[in-house]
């Protein structure tokens, strides 16, 4: 690498380079009772377990139940992933994040020409039910908690379908299914530009999944508006939270049209980002619970306590991790985990210290779990609920952010709601402006990243940093990819088409006739319908090209279905 630019900071007498939080909220040197005079304990905070749940969802908080510890488990093969799941569970992991590789997340099969370059990257190439069966073999399906954090909206429909199909095939009551789907149509387009479906199809699929789940798998949270990925893409904390609230509000409104009330729906889940700014992150979590409780009660007339409760699932910031001096990432992740515990979150997926180097190694993941055990059992942080509650600074910050989030929500509403804001490109502009602001601050030295634009290492890298680089997980080879393509082709050729075709036809007709698509997806998945076929058939029913990439034509049996219908 060439000459690197470094911001000069006096290492001995150094001072803070900024006077505002990471999101640009200007703060004073100190806060006192005058700054929190407007805050009412009963109305704005409440005891843990009481409305508006600012201080936490449960009176006993972590004494009663610790946060769920989860990872996105993303190894290349079903076998490796299954092995890793078992190892993690043995080390205290309680929540399984089932991710798949990037092509299947985008709605295409491994034998699609565009799959090649990212095949088996980011997870297993989960093209059909056989892969799920292998990946989940021997795992406690009725007891585990699953999370879906895929990119495309087709993923939630299809992979939830696979999970239900596997459980039903094993004779397990699907009512026992626990966990959540991100299923956030705004995030899929705004952040990932997912090609699987156009937005208007995304929006319908989202509701189909929720509706089916509410009525058949009551312990599954079928939507978790996602702030993590918008935030990683550039949104600040205010817009991250505002975006989640806007999506949740829109979806609850849409569900009402399908006759589902908020009380029937139950608790909401948000997937939020634990960023590097310690207090801002804690304030954001507390505020998220409070604002959703108020919206649920005041806007949707929630009657039950459950329906006013927001569960927070966390992913710690991957973007904050650096390629330079990767050991430093241990400090970053530890602080981020601490902010989650102090903020009273419900589940936590922490990034690994080697994530900026490669896909996380198993060792780095286990270090992560241990960090959480140390915070719990050695540092005793979770002993008391909301231990920072009442802090002048934190309470002021929480209250100030509420005003800012409300302004943002107001603007979205004035622009016709969150979908109109997506389709007009306004959300993109907001994201871009926010991202550029950060980029500028870094260039101007107003945002220091240790080891990157300040406090850089002189000379050779030490052995620990080197070792972190070396253990990072290596992506699959060309030979492994070739074998995968051959495997998929064999699988497709070996299916009982007499059984499969009418079930796929069922999905085609349900899509066309506006009926819920979730059950037909489950049934067809049992007979071997692949993710690419699922996406293609739904697209075809809408009269758009079978292939999101427009590179391949529909298979013959789908062509026959279209002709026959």
């Amino acid at each position, binding site marked *: *690498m*060439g*000459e*690197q*630019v470094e911001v000069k900071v006096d290492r001995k007498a150094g001072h803070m380079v900024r006077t505002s939080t990471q999101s640009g909220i200007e703060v004073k040197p100190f806060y006192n009772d005058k700054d929190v005079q407007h805050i009412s304990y009963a109305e704005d905070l409440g005891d843990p377990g009481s409305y508006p749940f600012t201080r936490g969802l449960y009176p006993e908080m972590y004494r009663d139940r610790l946060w769920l510890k989860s990872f996105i488990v993303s190894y290349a093969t079903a076998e490796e992933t299954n092995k890793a799941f078992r190892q993690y569970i043995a080390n205290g992991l309680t929540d399984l994040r089932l991710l798949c*590789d*990037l*092509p299947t*997340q*985008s709605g*295409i099969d491994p034998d699609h*020409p*565009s*799959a*090649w*370059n*990212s095949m088996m*990257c*980011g997870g297993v190439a989960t093209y059909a039910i056989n892969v799920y069966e292998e990946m989940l073999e021997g795992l406690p399906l009725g007891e585990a908690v699953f999370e879906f954090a895929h*990119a495309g909206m087709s993923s939630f429909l299809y992979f939830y379908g696979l999970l239900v199909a596997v459980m039903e095939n094993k004779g397990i009551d699907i009512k026992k299914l626990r966990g959540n789907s991100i299923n956030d149509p705004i995030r899929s387009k705004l*952040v*990932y*530009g*997912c*090609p699987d479906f156009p937005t208007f199809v995304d929006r319908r699929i989202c509701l189909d999944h929720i509706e089916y789940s509410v009525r058949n798998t009551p312990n599954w949270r079928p939507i978790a508006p996602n702030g993590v990925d918008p935030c*990683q*893409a*550039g949104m600040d904390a205010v817009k991250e939270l505002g975006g989640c609230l806007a999506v949740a509000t829109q979806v609850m409104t849409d569900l009402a049209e399908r006759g589902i009330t908020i009380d029937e729906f139950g608790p909401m889940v948000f997937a939020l980002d634990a960023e590097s700014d310690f207090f801002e992150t804690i304030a954001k979590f507390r505020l998220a619970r409070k604002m959703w409780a108020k919206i649920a009660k005041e806007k949707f007339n929630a009657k039950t306590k459950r329906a006013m409760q927001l569960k927070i699932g966390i992913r710690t910031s991957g*973007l904050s*991790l*650096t*390629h*330079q001096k990767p050991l430093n990432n241990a400090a970053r992740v530890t602080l981020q985990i601490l902010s989650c515990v102090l903020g009273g979150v419900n589940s936590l997926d922490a990034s690994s210290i080697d994530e*900026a*180097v*490669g*896909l996380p190694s198993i060792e780095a993941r286990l270090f992560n779990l241990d960090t959480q055990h140390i915070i719990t059992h050695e540092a005793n942080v979770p002993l008391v609920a909301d231990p920072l509650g009442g802090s002048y600074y934190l309470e002021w910050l929480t209250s100030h952010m509420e005003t800012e989030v409300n302004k943002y929500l107001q603007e979205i509403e004035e622009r016709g709601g969150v979908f109109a804001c997506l389709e007009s490109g306004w959300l993109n502009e907001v994201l*871009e402006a926010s*991202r*550029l602001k950060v*980029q500028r601050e870094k*260039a101007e030295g107003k945002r220091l*990243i240790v080891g*990157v*634009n300040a406090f850089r290492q002189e000379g050779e890298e030490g052995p620990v940093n080197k070792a972190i*680089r*070396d253990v*990072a*997980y*290596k*992506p699959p080879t*060309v030979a492994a990819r070739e074998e995968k393509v051959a495997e998929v082709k064999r699988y497709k050729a070996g299916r009982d088409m007499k059984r499969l075709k009418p079930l796929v036809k069922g999905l085609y007709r349900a899509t066309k006739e506006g009926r819920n698509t979730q059950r037909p997806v489950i049934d067809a998945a049992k007979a071997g319908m692949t993710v690419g076929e699922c996406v293609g058939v739904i697209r075809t029913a809408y009269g758009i090209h079978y292939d999101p*990439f427009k*590179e391949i034509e529909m298979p013959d049996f789908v062509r026959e279905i279209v002709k026959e219908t």
Partner: protein
Amino acid sequence: MEEKRPIRVLIAKVGCDIHERGALTLMTTLRDNGMEVIYTGRYQTPKGVANAAVSEDVDVVALSDHTGSLPIIAESVLSELEKFGVSDIKVVAGGLLTPADVKSLEDMGVTGNYGPGTPMEVIVEHIRGLV
């Protein structure tokens, strides 16, 4: 002899990698440093990237990827460029890279090979140096 013009760069993402922030950040940085930048967007094929690079008569193709597949991607893009009979378009890469990846990329003639968090000035200077 050569006409004077801004440096033209094609920023490309091949395959289904969804991480776009690095590419976008590079895009605006290069523009702000007086370059003409063409961004292909996500979900590209190697052939499409090579075709765009030749059509747009760019000086540099910058590949961005966060799946750990940069060597595979670079190899196929280089081979597609070769099919067009073009060898003077420089290819640079950035994203998730292991030391082994960097080595194999360098062997192919792909330069830069920057990890996340690399200061933008470094990349700008590298591209200027190439052209």
